[in-house]
């Protein structure tokens, strides 16, 4: 590259920008990936879709979107050879934002699927029908309550607790594993208490859809990605 001094300055400036963390959106064939791209671009966050293992920076953030069945997402993860990539990502303590079905696959399994989940977190998802909920779909805006634990990110509670977020799911995790000092569990109610959010040093897991929760959801995503 033969750049004049002025261009070099510009290149250096852009290098600094590009050297910042990159948001990687995991495209598993299902999922509302375009919605996430629209939403994050509104918030001026750069995002790159990936559907295969990639080299990444330690500050990069991986987003696993929702809208998909547990089994379909797990099949895609195996077919795209992403199983080890996701485990390595977690082992390296890199941040992950996991939404709805993208959150559920972090756990050991679901009644929805014959395939096991990633088993990064303990617990299973059970259908609302099996849990004898009045309706087999929990849909609409709902509040969160802090279940246990201490957050690695103290700001989160002030974003999560006063607001209502949009849920749409037929499977729920009603077990709340004992939290470590860095883990934080939030619950919501739908006749039952279920896990609505899990936060650790590197995982931001949401059963609800922040991208569909109006301005409070956008503020939450913006704060996490900033």
């Amino acid at each position, binding site marked *: 590259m033969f750049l004049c001094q002025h261009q070099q300055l510009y290149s250096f400036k852009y290098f600094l920008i590009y050297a910042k963390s990159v948001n990687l959106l995991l495209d598993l064939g299902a999922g509302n990936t375009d919605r996430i791209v629209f939403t994050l671009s509104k918030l001026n966050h750069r995002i790159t879709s990936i559907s295969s293992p990639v080299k990444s920076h330690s500050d990069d953030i991986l987003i696993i979107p929702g809208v998909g069945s547990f089994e379909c997402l797990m099949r895609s993860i195996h077919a795209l050879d992403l199983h080890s990539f996701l485990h390595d990502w977690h082992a390296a303590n890199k941040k992950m934002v996991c939404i709805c079905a993208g959150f559920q696959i972090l756990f050991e399994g679901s009644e929805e699927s014959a395939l096991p989940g990633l088993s990064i977190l303990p617990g299973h998802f059970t259908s609302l029908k099996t849990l004898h909920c009045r309706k087999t779909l929990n849909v609409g805006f709902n509040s969160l309550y802090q279940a246990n634990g201490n957050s690695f990110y103290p700001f989160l509670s002030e974003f999560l607790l006063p607001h209502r977020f949009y849920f*749409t799911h037929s499977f729920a995790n009603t077990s709340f594993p004992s939290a470590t000092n860095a883990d934080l569990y939030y619950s919501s109610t739908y006749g039952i208490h279920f896990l609505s959010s899990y936060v650790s040093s590197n995982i931001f897991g949401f059963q609800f859809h922040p991208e569909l929760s109006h301005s409070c959801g956008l503020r939450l995503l913006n704060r996490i990605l900033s």
Partner: protein
Amino acid sequence: MTYRIIPIILLDGIKAVVTHQFTSPTYVGDPRTLAKIYSDQGADEIFVLQINPSFNISDNLNFLASISKFTQCCVAYGGNLSTIRDVSSIISAGFEKVIFRRLFFNNPSLVRQVSLIYGSQAVTICLDIVHLLDEVRFGVFDQYSEKYLTLDQIYELQYCDYFSELLLNSTLADGSFNVDSWASSFIHEFSKPIIYAGGISSPKQINHLFSRGYDAVGLGAEFAFSAHNTSAVMPSLTHIYNKI
């Protein structure tokens, strides 16, 4: 229990329209503007329903994507979905749910396939409520098909795992500013959320429908244009939320 109020945007091609009993479509504006207004007013979800049978989804994906693009809530699409590719395109265009009507009867295996890929929470089934003499029927009634279910068959639908919500759409009440007076005990007992749409024009009617067991209501023409104000989209959703 979370009740939802869902604005419905009827599309005739790329135009937003209002209808009377799903006939005589009248242009009311740009659906992208309507969707943005509804979203900004705090809509729980937005339903976009295409009524023009010649509308081609793949030729209009950019237009459809531009409807969901400016919203910050769940947007569902129904109309002219006939292949899994159509559904994939719609989800890729930024919609979170699809609504099946005729296809539920004509191609249930495709509905099942969509559910297996995107999850049953992404699938809503729409049934027309039609009054024939003294009898109320549920199903699909238009110039292309006439298929209906008995009340017992509808009751059985709650055990079907391939969809999560039922939208009951009153043809008689559409555009009439009056809700369908029909009522049935199965609404209370049905294990999937039921949405009522057709003729709703006041918060009082919405409260009445919720008290009858509906989980959500779909607001169409009457929501954007009251009988007394047909000049512009009025900021009524906020008003309605305050009254519920």
